[in-house]
């Protein structure tokens, strides 16, 4: 496999999935968001969003906290330091790949 192709396959596939990339990007820009905000911003269904968040939580990229705002249930999500670092590495890798392609 050429080094260029290897670079593409080496990106973090957990983050690279389009819906999860959107979720992680949103979380990167904030310190904490709630489930409703993510639902609205991603346009995903509740089930879909929950599934993606579970995968990210299992990988240690996000922290999920179930709480209440008054009497209303609220799920708060934030990126862990591991998740933040993974996203930054992903962006660096992408930049390098794009730079390599544009140099050719």
């Amino acid at each position, binding site marked *: 496999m050429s080094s260029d192709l290897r670079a593409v396959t080496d990106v973090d596939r957990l983050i690279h999935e389009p819906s999860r*990339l*959107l979720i992680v*990007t*949103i979380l*990167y*820009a*904030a*310190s*904490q*968001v*709630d*489930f*409703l*905000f*993510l*639902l*609205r*911003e991603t346009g995903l269904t*509740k089930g879909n969003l929950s599934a993606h968040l579970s995968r990210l939580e299992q990988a240690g990229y996000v922290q999920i906290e179930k709480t209440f*705002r008054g009497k*209303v*249930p*609220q*799920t*708060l999500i934030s990126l862990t330091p591991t998740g933040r670092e993974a996203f930054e590495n992903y*962006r660096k890798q*992408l*930049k390098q790949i*794009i730079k390599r392609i544009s140099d050719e």
Partner: protein
Amino acid sequence: MKDDIQATIQRTQRYWYVDGLSEIGTGSVILLMGLFYFALSLAQPGTVTALVVGVGQPVIILGGFWLASKAVTNLKERITYPRTGYVSYPRRSGKRRWGVMATSAVIAIGLTLGVTQLAASGNRALIPVVTAALIALALALLGYRFSLQRFYVLGILVMLIGLLIAWLGLTEPLSTALFFSLFGLCMIAAGTITLIRYLHATQPLVEEL
């Protein structure tokens, strides 16, 4: 893909301004400052007036912005978060925080010195124009940072206010009073229009158990 990532980050950061509440809060404090200067214009010049300005101005600015911040947060809890969700933003810490404070202090001191210089050189008529230009620049930078058109519009309005005040040739503190009052009203109007549009476009959602 990189552009999409940056656009998403910007959109998330821009969410703070989605409801217009921060403009209403800031505009209210600026309007209050304008009213303070109006009250001052009615007072007799003297030691007591100088004392009131010296104490009252920082109290209104610092206290006003603190109160406005609390009010905006409270209103967002009641209006915005139930409709489109909750977001909190990372607080600047350490060097970045001190850097921003230092930059703000330098700008404030530079502005004060510049205005004082203009006043001393007899070019008082230029003071509202220069002040308006600096505020318009700050608003334009905000508009560019968060890709919000209404801040560009506010910047243009502020410039027009500055030119109007200069053209009217009012004495101090009436000139400052009118400038801040009109500027505050413009911000409140912009925030209110944004809030009305936001309320029409959204409904409160409830997370199910």
